[in-house]
């Protein structure tokens, strides 16, 4: 509408570029994660396929695509098929508002931050419905755990970001990055950052918060009945989720693309990959808590902390005028 042809082409290139980059990062993370886990746990990790095992994702992909795509006869067929797609679609849609560089973002929404929260709250359906549709008690328990966990941690995930919104005076992600020119928000919003990081780990249900798929208790949790490419979608969705949360931590608290010398997009990816590394380090080192400990931590520690952070930030901004 009212755009010139080169502008439209540029926009399309950004859209497909973001899509391609995100999908390749998600695939590459399969290798990165297993190598880093090996490094931190003093073992090798995959090192057979290609130099340093770098072609491992390719081998994994061939395996996943070649597997029989099976739907259990007792499953609720339409919902069973729909569930894995939801997680990938919601996470990919959320990437639309991430500003990779001053001029590179798919959509410059004024309610960008809320848009991300909305899509992350829709992502819960993937796990909940996947577990329910499998008609398997382990899957159902995993799905129940996942939905309770994600609803709980979503509440203060939103609250932890409101301090950032107050400081920046906008829900627009680009404006939030611009507001950090003088000082990264991680300094005034340190508690907000810690809460968002923990909530992010819980939202992507990664270890130590991977109770929905705890293999020592629940076989494979909500995706017990999934195989082939449908399982692959859950897998890709998880890696995309990690990338999204890391990119958003960089955007909200570490000045997004801002940085000296290097081009903006490079800074953005350096920061994002640093937090992806933190995610993997958490998995490599921390044990899993009990489920009631997880929920108690959420409601009794994180929620009051998020509210206190909000009150103090608001008070200081009000006092400073």
């Amino acid at each position, binding site marked *: 509408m009212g755009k010139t042809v080169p502008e439209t082409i540029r926009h399309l290139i950004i859209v497909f570029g973001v899509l391609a980059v995100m999908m390749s990062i998600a695939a590459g993370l399969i290798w990165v994660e297993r190598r880093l886990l090996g490094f931190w746990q003093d073992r090798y990790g995959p090192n057979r396929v290609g130099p340093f095992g770098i072609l491992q994702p390719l081998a994994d992909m061939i395996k996943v695509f070649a597997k029989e795509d099976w739907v259990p006869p007792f499953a609720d067929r339409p919902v069973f098929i729909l569930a894995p797609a939801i997680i990938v679609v919601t996470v990919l849609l959320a990437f639309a508002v991430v500003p990779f560089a001053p001029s590179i973002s798919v959509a410059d929404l004024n309610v960008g931050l809320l848009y991300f929260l909305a899509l992350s709250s829709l992502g819960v359906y993937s796990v909940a*419905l996947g577990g329910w549709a499998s008609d398997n008690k382990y899957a159902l328990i995993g799905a129940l755990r996942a939905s309770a966990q994600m609803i709980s941690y979503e509440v203060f995930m939103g609250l932890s970001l409101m301090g950032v919104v107050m400081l920046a005076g906008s829900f627009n992600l680009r404006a939030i990055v611009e507001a950090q020119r003088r000082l990264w928000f991680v300094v005034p919003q340190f508690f907000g950052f810690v809460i968002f990081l923990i909530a992010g780990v819980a939202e992507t249900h990664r270890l130590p918060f991977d109770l929905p798929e705890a293999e020592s208790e629940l076989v494979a949790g909500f995706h017990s009945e999934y195989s082939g490419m449908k399982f692959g979608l859950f897998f890709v969705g998880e890696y995309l989720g990690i990338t999204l949360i890391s990119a958003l931590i960089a955007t909200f608290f570490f000045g997004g693309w801002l940085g000296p010398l290097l081009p903006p997009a490079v800074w953005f990816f350096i920061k994002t990959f640093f937090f992806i590394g933190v995610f993997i380090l958490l998995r490599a080192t921390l044990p899993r808590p009990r489920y009631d400990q997880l929920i108690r931590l959420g409601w009794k520690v994180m929620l009051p902390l998020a509210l206190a952070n909000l009150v103090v930030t608001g008070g200081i901004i009000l006092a400073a005028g």
Partner: protein
Amino acid sequence: MEGVFYMAAAVAVISTALVIVQMNVVHALLYLILSLLSAAVIFVTLGAPFVAALEVIIYAGAIMILFVFVIMMLNLGTQSAGMERQWMRAGMWAGPAVLALLLLADVIYMLAVSPRVSGYAAKAAGPREVGIALFGPYLIGVELASVLLLAGLVGSFHLGRSVRQRLPEEGEAGGGEGD
């Protein structure tokens, strides 16, 4: 934008109708979620992106997932679908259909009588405008809603607490006297 509006409206109407006629409870809930999402799209086309985001976060994201959660716990199988089918006899439709038709006639009459006004807002109502409205002229409504929520919170806290208090007593008395 007008085309988007009519498409979203059509999706909303069709999915809401499917909520009513679906026999499987979870499928009905999925259509309800779809209906809420299309309502969010309608809000965007009418120039209220903030309200649209809240609609998705609160209704589609939080409240509906609780519905799904409860239905999952009840684990209603094919039995309940059969029961639904029994209840959905043709006779059941007469009463609601008459009432709905009356409402439809009202709407058509009002649309025909009222002067044609464009429904599209001149400018989008962002978070700032919504906030000023909520804490300005509608402050009493906000406060009343918060009182209602507080009552709900106290109530659920009480219900959750009484169960926990009774359990150790039963263990000690070895059979529970009742209270």
